[in-house]
Structure formats: C-alpha cells, structure tokens
C-alpha cells in the first residue's frame, strides 16, 4: 500500500472515531437533559 494512503487511513480512523465519539456523548447529554426538562414540567 502507498505510504500516503496508509497515513491518510490512520488519520481518518482517528478523526472519524473521535468525531463520532464526541457526537454520541453530546447526543446522550442532550437526550438526558430533555428527559429532565420533561420530568420537571410534570
């Protein structure tokens, strides 16, 4: 495999992985905050 592609694949794995992880954490927090708001309104 061409070294340039290897380096690019490694970078993509890191950044896509971290992006999705951060995104899922943020989504989780927003969902739980939404649940708290709903419970408070009740």
């Amino acid at each position, binding site marked *: *495999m061409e*070294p*340039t592609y*290897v*380096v690019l*694949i*490694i*970078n993509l*794995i*890191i950044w896509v*992985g*971290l992006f999705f*992880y*951060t995104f899922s*954490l*943020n989504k*989780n*927090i927003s969902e*739980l*905050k939404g*649940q*708290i708001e709903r*419970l*408070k309104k009740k």
Partner: protein
Amino acid sequence: MKSNAVMSTLKIVLLIWVGLVFSGAYLWAPLAKGLKEYTRVLYFHVPMAWITVIAFLMSALFSILYLKKRLPLYDLYAEATNQLGIVFAVLATITGSIWAKASWGSFWNWDPRETSIFILLLIYAAYFALRSAIEEDEKKAALSAVYSILAFVTVPFFIFIVPRIYDSLHPDPVINEEGKIHMGSRILTVFLSSIAGFTALYFWLFKLKIDLIKVKLQLDELEK
C-alpha cells in the same frame, strides 16, 4: 452563561489548534530520513498512546481520592477516564497495526510494543469485567478503585520499560536510551503541538463524560 462562552471559545481554539497541527504535519514539517512518508503517523499515533497513559493515570488518581473520601462521584470519574483510556489505547493499537502492515509487512508481529499494549488492553478490559460482576455499588466502587490503582502500576512497565528492554522492530522511542530527543526543530514543534492538542481533546472528552454523569445522577434523583 459565562462558563458556556468560555467553553465555546476553548472549543474553537482547540479546533483551530488541531487544524494547524494537521496542516503543519502535511505542509510544513519535513519527512524524517528513516520514516519517510510515515513520519506523519508520529503526530497522531504517539499522542494516542500518550493519552492512554494520562487517562489511566487520572483513573488511578480518582481511585485514590475515592478510597480516601468515599465519594461515589470519584468512582464514576475513574470509570469514565478508564473508558477514554480504552478508546485511545484501541485507536493507538489499530493505527499502529496499519503502520506495521505498511512498514513490517504484517498487521501483527507480537513485537514487544504490540504485546505490551495488548496485555494492557486485557488488564483494563478486566476492570470493566470486574465492575459488571459486582452488584453492590459500594463494594463495586471500592474493589474497582483498588484494581485501578494496581493496574496503573503496570502502565509504566508495559509502555516505557518492556519496549526498551527487548529488541523491537518499532522505531526508536521519542525519548531514547540516552535521554535525548533526536528530532528536527520543525518535526519537534508539530509533534509537541500535536501532543498538546490531543491532551486538550482528552480533557474536553473527559469534561463531556463528567457532564453526562452529572445529568444521569440528576435524572435518577428526579425519577426517585
């Protein structure tokens, strides 16, 4: 509101910083002689391993705090940072094995460095197995804290000592046996900036995890 503005600014600064590291790695820093194109992997693969150490160290510190003060929050923080440590260790292992395939010809060679990160992953996987095996919260927290401290004792051994004792295919550690860094100034600048950027990224992820824990606790309180 003020802290939200500070956080947003910090996120933007981090994004710009990481962008600069990325462009510096590809456009500004020269390629090292032996590593050629793979020099660029250094800026992403090494920080992953570095953050693994930081995350496990934080876990050991929170575990000590838990054993001292017996506050359940410290146990949850230790668990959260261990989860991050595992994520970064897996990323370091995957990226390292792709690098190995390209430069050594196979994804896995049981090289001392590969073996030591594999054992480290098993040790920390056992931490989560231990947690899931105990139902009583206080017992779970206390045993996990003791395990986490003992597990961290092995980290310097597996990351810094074993790869230096045995002959390895892995390129020389950044700080070698003579205790010197053999890097050109541009490579070193991008490398250290990358370490700083990824460390900030770890603390941002850890803050997100803390927020998640606090929101979950708040929700539990309300549901009771």
